[in-house]
């Protein structure tokens, strides 16, 4: 088991499928010793493919599917966990296979190996490249260079890392003689130049940081490694230097990523301090249920005039952000995706209109600016976890901006990053989810949904368009009555619907064949954090052996673990449950005197946590997965969307 885990730590090449344990080169748990002289494993290394004894189905990393993403991950080196894996892969695999097979993060991997290995691996490198076939196949293959295949959107960094690699190898083949110049294309030369420039910039930055004079000899990460003489890949070292240059900030970043302990609203001193800072009036914390006093009190639309009057005081808040904040406050914007998209677009607007103040750097200033926006939005309404993920993505993009970019370039890059996040992680993800989920709807099904989830609505409409015959049961609850909105849209499209309140769920459940639910967030223990009431629906469905499908985009997955819905939640307006607007005859609570009201505590929770036991399947943009696989998605893809 342990050995297996080691293999899976080697990030992208997996021996899933078939592997021959007898073949020495792919023994799990690679040993460095093999790497030095590659002769031991694969003596011939001749052109005949028969010479290597590998498992026929060792699957190299993907090239098509999440291509851009994977590649991008590769381009920007990720510190930390992978390093170990990369070390392993460089050395110990059967060389021809490993290099051919591993393609997703080549520059960083090689750079890494090259760098930390020193002579041993460089020896291996030269050896390997002695084999003519191998060397020639290397540049083209390992790095997937063919321009046709290269996605348009590949970042400049990547081009920098890749192209030089190729020219470098050509140089190597030509035994570092001059004809190189004739061979390289204009683009390649340019890329090389650019990469050198980048290296220089990085070295300068590094030197400044470490305080050592920027000599090549002293600053460790920047100096050209000694392999330079025997025709080493400059690009690799550049990659390495960039990587290391990025490394330490990234470490700090990670520390920063750990959220500070959440504000506990039953801690009076801190609440007092927060009140002074806040732009909104903190409502009185009277008559609140003991167990939930730590949660931020609900702020309702009545504060709107107050906030509006402060418009000119809050000059540092961009109007777009301000508008979104007001929309949150009044509840005009609701639904995880809508809120997230609105927020991102507001940030995009703010970034477009941003100009770096004198004597400040864009990266630092913009980060703090975004932090300011975020805290303003939090004051209007607590953020959902998915928005937290989006913000983390954005901040990461800002901090990872290359120093060499000009302000306008940086802004353009950020804006396109935001667009891409919205497009890939939300819009396209929804389409994929819809298509997956529709395969689970059969003719004659009775589908139940609760509240109003936009993904579920899309699924139902899509299945209806496909001509599937099914019936929908919309379950709803007070005080939001979101289900009615959904119901209205579904009925307008001609679906046959049943509408009921959550009280009747145990009655209606026996005729239901599938339950489709949305989610605000999915935590890594498989707990689904969603609109309050979801847990009851899921539990009743479980008791009736009805499969429960949760439809949720992967950007809403969060690595937090939560066992109950108490420690983190959002409070709604307590009056909303006490009063039934419009119907005077049921306003029993109105007649209470103030003294009587002192004994009354109202609790209007917005979310609840559904344990993973009650969930049959999670439909996400990576396919249909069991709830136990959420941490896998988080582990495999979080770094990717942080680094898109």
């Amino acid at each position, binding site marked *: 088991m342990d050995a297996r885990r080691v293999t899976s730590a080697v990030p992208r090449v997996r021996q899933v499928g078939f592997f021959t344990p007898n073949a020495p080169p792919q023994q799990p748990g690679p040993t460095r010793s093999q790497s030095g002289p590659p002769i031991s494993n694969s003596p011939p290394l001749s052109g005949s493919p028969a010479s290597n004894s590998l498992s026929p189905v060792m699957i190299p990393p993907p090239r098509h599917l999440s291509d851009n993403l994977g590649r991008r991950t590769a381009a920007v080196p990720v510190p930390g966990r992978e390093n170990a894996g990369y070390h392993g892969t460089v050395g110990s695999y059967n060389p021809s296979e490993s290099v051919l097979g591993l393609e997703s993060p080549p520059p960083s991997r090689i750079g890494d190996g090259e760098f930390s290995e020193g002579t041993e691996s460089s020896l291996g490198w030269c050896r390997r490249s002695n084999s003519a076939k191998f060397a020639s196949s290397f540049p083209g293959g390992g790095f997937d260079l063919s321009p046709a295949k290269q996605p348009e959107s590949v970042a400049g960094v990547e081009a920098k890392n890749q192209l030089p690699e190729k020219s470098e190898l050509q140089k190597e083949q030509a035994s570092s003689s001059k004809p190189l110049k004739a061979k390289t294309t204009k683009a390649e030369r340019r890329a090389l130049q650019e990469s050198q420039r980048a290296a220089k910039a990085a070295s300068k930055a590094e030197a400044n940081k470490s305080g050592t004079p920027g000599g090549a000899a002293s600053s460790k990460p920047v100096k050209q490694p000694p392999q330079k003489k025997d025709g080493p890949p400059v690009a690799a070292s550049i990659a390495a230097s960039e990587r290391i240059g990025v490394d330490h900030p990234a470490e700090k970043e990670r520390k920063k990523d750990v959220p500070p302990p959440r504000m506990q609203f039953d801690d009076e001193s801190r609440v007092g301090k927060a009140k002074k800072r806040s732009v909104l009036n903190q409502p009185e914390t009277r008559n609140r249920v003991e167990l939930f006093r730590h949660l931020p009190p609900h702020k309702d639309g009545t504060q709107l005039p107050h906030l509006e009057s402060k418009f000119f005081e809050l000059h540092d808040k961009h109007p777009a952000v301000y508008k979104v904040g007001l929309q949150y406050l009044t509840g005009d914007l609701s639904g995880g995706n809508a809120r997230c998209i609105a927020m991102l677009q507001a940030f995009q607007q703010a970034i477009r209109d941003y100009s770096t103040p004198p004597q400040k750097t864009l990266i630092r200033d913009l980060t703090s600016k975004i932090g300011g926006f975020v805290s303003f939005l939090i004051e209007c309404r607590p953020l959902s976890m998915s928005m937290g993920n989006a913000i983390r993505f954005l901040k990461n993009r800002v901090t990872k901006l290359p120093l060499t970019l000009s302000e306008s370039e940086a802004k353009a890059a950020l804006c396109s990053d935001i667009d891409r996040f919205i497009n890939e992680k939300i819009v396209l993800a929804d389409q994929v989810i819809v298509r997956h989920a529709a395969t689970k709807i059969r003719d004659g099904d009775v589908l139940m949904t609760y509240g109003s989830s936009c993904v579920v609505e899309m699924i139902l409409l899509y299945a209806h368009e496909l001509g599937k015959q099914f019936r929908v049961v919309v379950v709803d609850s007070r005080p939001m009555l979101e289900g009615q909105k959904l119901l209205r849209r579904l009925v307008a499209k001609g679906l046959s619907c049943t509408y009921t309140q959550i009280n009747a769920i145990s009655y209606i459940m026996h005729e239901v064949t599938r339950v489709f639910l949305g989610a605000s967030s999915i935590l890594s223990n498989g707990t689904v954090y969603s609109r309050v009431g979801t847990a009851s629906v899921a539990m009743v469905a479980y008791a009736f052996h009805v499969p429960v499908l949760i439809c949720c985009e992967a950007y809403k997955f969060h690595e937090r673990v939560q066992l109950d819905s108490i420690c983190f939640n959002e409070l709604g307006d307590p009056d909303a449950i006490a009063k039934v607007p419009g119907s005077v005859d049921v306003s029993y609570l109105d007649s209470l005197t103030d003294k009587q009201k002192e004994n009354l505590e109202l609790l209007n929770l917005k979310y609840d946590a559904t344990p993973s036991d009650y969930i049959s399947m999670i439909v996400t943009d*990576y396919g249909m997965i*069991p709830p136990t*696989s959420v941490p896998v998605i988080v582990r495999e893809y979080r770094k990717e969307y942080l680094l898109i």
Partner: protein
Amino acid sequence: MWWRSPSFILDRQQQQQQNDSVPPNPESLFLSSSPPSMADSLQNPKSNISAYYQTRAAHHAVVTSDWLAQAQAAVGRLPDDDDSSGSERKAAPTGGGGGGVRGGKVFSVINEFNNWRKQPDLAEAVAAIRALAAVIRASEATTMMELEIELKKASDSLKSWDTTSISLTAGCDLFMRYVTRTSALEYEDFNSARSRLIERAEKFGEISCKARRIIAMLSQDFIFDGCTILVHGFSRVVLEVLKTAAQNKKLFRVFCTEGRPDRTGLRLSNELAKLDVPVKLLIDSAVAYSMDEVDMVIVGADGVVESGGIINMMGTYQIALVAHRMNKPVYVTAESYKFARLYPLDQKDMAPALRPIDFGVPIPSKVEVETSARDYTPPQYLTLLFTDLGVLTPSVVSDELIQLYL
């Protein structure tokens, strides 16, 4: 080694001849019982019957009446044609799957596949991959892209030809995955890429056998002296596991379910008896009755699905339920090429693999017969999966699948 001594084999043979319940030649026995129902089962249109289970039946030398009737009808025709009426129909419009023209004859990936899958020791996935290799060989493509498209077509036609076989689908997917990920870009020319792909495909069979060995080795830690193992159906992997355990001189006994409707349990018990393992045959409905004597359940799998559950021969689900209720571990042995990107939500949520059932007596026409050949066992009833990737809990399957296919 005593169990290989000739005298032992002679003893076995004598015993077999005495023993009526283990027919030395199942065909003969079958022939005697099949005529009444033959007409009945012939009414089933051929396309309704799972090709996967036909292959299995052929491999196991258990001949269904339907198969037999077809074989009789096919006398005098080409040997190829007898069980490919489905394939003929489908292959013709697809123009030979992903075929080029080879030697003037239209090449069909499905015929190729049918040829391969007749070999008894060859797993279905291996046959599929060999068939795809044949496509590569026959192909006249000159670029990798062309070849990829051709292969895609071929694998699609293979998959659609028999939608019931999970390992066929998984095998095709796996190979396509390999092809699309390691393309010509890694090689200086197209031909070396091509030969590399073919070589990979050839090795596949070997690997599948090796996977069985690995699984057998891994499972040895779980079989302890004096234990009683309940097995269901005939699985080559399970047999390998038990064989290895016997070779390691473990003392255990095996309960075999009878394995309706194709008597797979009979066959397995026959094999085990040859190894001198104490074996007891149960009827399928006696599982709950004898579960308290059982220490563990070992089953094979037709397919391991994304939830970590398995799709296996009919009856596995109820055995797992009973075992779970009685707190007996349920172990699944499956090669990793059986991992499929499927996620059935319940029993009816998969393509049914139909197979005629021979009840031995005529069935009134008004009576409906459940002919589905397999069921889905949800992961919560499985304890561990023994695979060539290691011993996995059901939830790891999804992990592996995500890493494999995403």
